[in-house]
């Protein structure tokens, strides 16, 4: 099971045909204190790169994009109830949604951890 990353600071972890998606530690640090999360309903489908969720910190609102195309099969309601958990465990328990992959080929276009680290350092 590998984790992939987008240039917009989402991470994606694939098991079978389901991908768990969240925002990276770097993104959470940049946002600051997260105070609000809006997640899509289960059953909704997104194209790769579409606005999928919203995360707001004390400072500003940011869109979270679908890192790959797919249908939402689970949304993490616990981060809606406790937005601060996004700062505490952005790459762990504070995942956003699980997507059923529509096109596994899209994964090839995403960054691996080394490439993402380089993107953060030089981006």
């Amino acid at each position, binding site marked *: 099971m590998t984790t992939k990353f987008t240039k917009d600071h989402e991470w994606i972890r694939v098991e079978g045909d389901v991908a768990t998606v969240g925002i990276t530690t770097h993104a959470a640090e940049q946002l*600051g*204190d997260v*105070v*609000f999360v*809006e997640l899509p309903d289960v059953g909704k489908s997104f194209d790769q790169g579409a606005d999928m969720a*919203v995360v*707001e*910190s*004390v*400072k*500003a*609102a940011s869109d979270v994009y679908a890192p790959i195309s797919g249908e939402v099969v689970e949304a993490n309601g616990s981060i*809606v109830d406790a*937005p601060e958990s996004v700062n505490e465990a952005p790459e762990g328990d504070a995942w956003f949604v699980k997507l059923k992959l529509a096109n596994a080929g899209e994964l090839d276009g995403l960054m691996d951890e080394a490439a993402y680290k380089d993107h953060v350092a030089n981006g």
Partner: protein
Amino acid sequence: MSDDLKILSLDALHRDLGGKMVPFAGYSMPVQFPAGVKEEHLWTRSKAGLFDVSHMGQAVLSVGGGSHEDVSALIEELVPGEIKKLGKGKIRYSLLMAEDGGVLDDLMITRFPADQDREGSLFLVVNAAVKDQDYAYIAEKLAGRATLEVLDRSLLALQGPKAVDVIAAMDPEAATMPFMSMRRVTLEGMDVSLSRCGYTGEDGFEISVANEDADKLARLLLAHDDVAPIGLGARDSLRLEAGLCLYGHDMTPATSPVEANLIFALGKRRRSEGGFLGADRVLSELAEGTKTLRVGIKPQGRAPAREGVEVKTADGTKIGQVTSGGFGPTVEGPVAMGYVDVAYADEGTEVHLDIRGKLQPATIVTLPFTEPRYYRGPKK
């Protein structure tokens, strides 16, 4: 990054403290420190936060050889506040008026204290973003009758319930200064103007200090266990909870003082006499009311409503707009202010906020969101 940003006297200190520097009103300023906006906000409400507000404009308006009556009569042409009766060492919040009754800025006007040779002068503190145009406007309107001297000084604000203890340790008399008063004092050898006022809704002080002393004074204050540095982010959430306007957002040249719900800033005598720029509009609005009013808006859900969000009825008709909004750490939820049609401006009115295309319920509330804790003087 623009390299023509102006640099504050405390720039090195902000960087030493890990401040995240951003461009603001032409200055490089700390938006937050490592503690983060929320913690800085809560710290200020429970202890004492140190803010560098040196970007703000400080100036002295004088009538050479004149009296307070002379200089106050002149400034009263431009502001609707009661300045003639302002006592020595007292501060008044007022508004710089355009000829058409719009607000060009909000400002603090201080009559120098009795122990100072500044009779016939007023100390003005204006907003950073508009200070140059304010100076030009005041100089033009009062040309040949008064002089405006722009001061190149730093301004520190120490805000929060512990601020008084920190200042009184250096200057015991500060403990009994009432809210909206100023004294000229020596703090650890530094000659400063100490004003009991602020922009957070908390008790606290603003200290006008020479640029060459600013770093020393700030480090002295920060050495106190109860004092932490606070950035622009928390400054904004603190003033928003306190219901205080941010000029350029909650008030613009298109807004009148009556629309902005700042009637408290209009002196009683001035309301009947007029005699200030824009008085025609202001007096007729006082008599007949306005179409829109600035109000507090409390979203019922968790989604923050930020500047620009439209206020609507349940059927989607636009009735107003949010001018400032975000998350209030003390309120532990979203808070906003904005302008709505007067028909919807009463406390308790249910309205809707169009947040990303979804109508979210909200309630019109009386500002502030957090009770002010100003010090009004010794208990009798």
